[in-house]
């Protein structure tokens, strides 16, 4: 009963996050989904993952969303959608019905939390996963630094416009025509 209540509440929060017109409201509903999912995971016995999900999913990611929305602006895009709503709802409904039909019923033989520690599973069985996680984190940091660096918008004049500008300068009687400077790579970065 508790599981069903938590699951329904998480799905409701997800639907409200999708339907919210303001981005900030959507980010806060997403934080609600994360919090409810972490409670669900805790009730299932996955305590380490629940704590990480609560701190990262509901904490860090929400702060990142609020930060990004405050920079990019919370502009509503109106009622037009990428696909017609009836088409998207039909496709998603068919997919969910197909998934439920394929997966259920399940033989739930073991309802108790199984033994074995997460540390042993991580370091002994899934060592490659840990390595990939570290690489992912560094990749994310590097991409973030590259993307958030202050850049000038890249506006390059076409070659024809440059030659016309040079001709104009020559006809104006300047002795030394200043060459059109190409933006250096360091400047762009």
């Amino acid at each position, binding site marked *: 009963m508790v599981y069903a209540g938590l699951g329904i509440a998480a799905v409701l929060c997800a639907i409200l996050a999708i339907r919210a017109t303001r981005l900030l409201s959507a980010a806060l509903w997403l934080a609600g989904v994360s919090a409810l999912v972490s409670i669900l995971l805790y009730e299932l016995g996955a305590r380490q993952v629940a704590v*990480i999900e609560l701190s990262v999913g509901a904490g860090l990611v929400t702060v990142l969303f609020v930060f*990004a929305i405050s920079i990019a602006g919370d502009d509503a895009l109106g009622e037009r959608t990428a696909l017609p709503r009836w088409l998207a709802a039909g496709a998603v409904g068919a997919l969910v019905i197909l998934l439920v039909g394929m997966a259920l019923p399940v033989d739930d033989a073991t309802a108790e939390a199984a033994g074995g520690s997460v540390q042993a599973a991580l370091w002994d069985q899934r060592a490659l996963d840990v390595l990939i996680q570290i690489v992912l984190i560094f990749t994310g940091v590097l991409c973030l630094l590259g993307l958030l660096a202050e850049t000038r918008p890249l506006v390059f004049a076409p070659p024809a416009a440059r030659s016309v500008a040079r001709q104009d300068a020559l006809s104006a009687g300047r002795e030394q025509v200043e060459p059109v400077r190409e933006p250096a790579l360091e400047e762009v970065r």
Partner: protein
Amino acid sequence: MSTLEIMLVSAFALVGAGLYGLLITRNLIKVVIALQIMVKGALVALVAAGQASDQLALGQSLAMTVIVADTVVAVIGLAFAVQVKRVRGTLDLRALAELRG
């Protein structure tokens, strides 16, 4: 319904809600939100499957990998959205599509 079945239905519903948002939204930041919701569904399904197969520790370790990848995707997606807004002045995916067939 058993616990595992309730978990699986919740996970499928979360994936469906995220996919619906992914299909209808035109806002770049909302695309990241929809992706996050889909990943939450995958997370619940992973842990529930680990518990049902008597390998909860393995399910948790896989869920941790998913959380890390999901966070990196969110960070890069949001940074990309901020840069797109700076350069192009909009977050509308339709307005960003330059190639039209």
